[in-house]
């Protein structure tokens, strides 16, 4: 089994669509809850992760320039992450297809955790 980070993205409009009214938020949140429960029940939930606020600060370069951001001008915001345990990338992708955010304009980026990085450096 390997670990995979799911990065969830959506446009600001899509986010508003999902959480705009209390009823919509209620529906989105219970769909989310159901999906996470399913992952956990099947033993795939390695880390329940955290959602992220849309805005923060960006620190960049040797001069450590601080700007508002991170992605005020970006079309898509990172909404948060979870860590899933799966046999391989194919299974991780399959599991991601159940994400309720995909019903709107959201996307799930499935990224294997690179366990060998330090090992390669050492070579």
């Amino acid at each position, binding site marked *: 089994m390997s670990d995979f980070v799911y990065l969830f993205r959506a446009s600001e409009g899509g986010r508003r669509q999902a959480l705009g009214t209390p009823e919509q938020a*209620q529906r989105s*949140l*219970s769909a*989310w*809850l159901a999906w*996470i*429960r399913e992952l*956990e029940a099947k033993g795939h*939930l390695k880390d*329940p*992760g*955290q*959602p992220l606020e849309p805005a923060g600060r960006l620190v960049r370069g040797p001069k450590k320039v601080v700007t508002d951001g991170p992605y005020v001008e970006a079309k898509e915001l990172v909404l*948060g992450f*979870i860590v899933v345990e799966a046999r391989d990338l194919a299974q991780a992708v399959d599991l991601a297809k159940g994400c309720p955010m995909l019903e709107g304009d959201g996307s799930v980026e499935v990224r294997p955790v690179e366990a060998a990085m330090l090992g390669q450096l050492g070579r």
Partner: protein
Amino acid sequence: MVAALTRIFGVQNLALAEDVVQDAFCRALTVWKVRGVPDNPSAWLMATAKNRALDAIRRERTARTFAPELGRLLESEWTTAPVVEEAFAAPTIRDEQLRMMFSCCHPRLPEPAQVALILNILCGFGAKEIAGAFLTSRAAIEKRIARGKKVLAGAKRLFDLRDTEFTARLSAVRRALYLLFSEGYHGASAESAVRVELCQEAMRLTALLREHPPAATPETNALAALLCLHAARLPARLDAGGDLSPLGDQDRSRWDAGLIAEGLALLERSAAGPRLTAYHIEAAIAATHAAAASVETTDWRQVVSLYDRLMAIAPSPVVALNRAIAIAQRDGPDRGMEELRAIKDRDRLKGYPFHPAAMGELELRRGNPRAARKHFAAALALARNPTERRFLQKRVRACGSLSG
């Protein structure tokens, strides 16, 4: 609300659940004092409790483990708020209350402790009110509740309604609801003799039981019938002056016809089972009273024979007391008096004012106002609240005017 919160925190953190509810109530009182009571106080309270629950989860999540059913869902902000939201949704609250009721009836707890726990956790009654219902001391009840909560916490999770123990626990749950209703009906606590809201709580929880098909047995229907038929008399239990009105003096036009009809229908449905239980018999007694236009036209032979059967399957000094009163109605006060004197375990009625009051009533009817007065005075000394006191004072005065 405690049940909903226990679903989140787990039974081992019952105290935390109670703290959160307490906190929400305190907050409500403080805010309402300044801004006035909101349009929908229960929704306001619910929202406050949810927020307090979220605070508690965030504060405690590294230090404690919560409900095992929720796994790791409370570790993440993705799912924390939805889990709290879900716990407070109406169907969940209903299920959790049922599970809590059944959890309180743990076989390792003696029955009185089970009942005390339900009254405390699900109905929010204090140790003093519960002590009144059981005719025991407050300290004893506090001990019972504390011990009960320890057993609950040891069980790790709330009772699963599909468990094989379901039927055994169901019977303890019914008994608890019965006693809860009695506490409201005969109220021993200081505030008021008839606390309608306690009866309503018992009826609410019984209805909850009946909504869950495996719990809606003939015996449960008999209990529901009994509660309806007694509740129907509540509007007449206090007279216009707010004084306790005994069955004989009640204005029967004030009995709730809707509840009587519902009770009779339930009693009919309760006949579907093979067993005749104490609830069936008590409901039948209440139905006999409900069918009569007055004390004089009541079928007392029927009432006495029902009490005989009740004594055979569920003997108690209070049942014996009521049976003696029914016999006095059927055969006259002399026979009633004999029965009253013959009650076994009369010691257990020592703190119960209606035992000497019944003796006073019968002595009055036998034409012995002096003896009656003594009994009523003894009853008065045992009165547990102002309503009982006023009622018994009136009875004492009634003897005085007779003896001139």
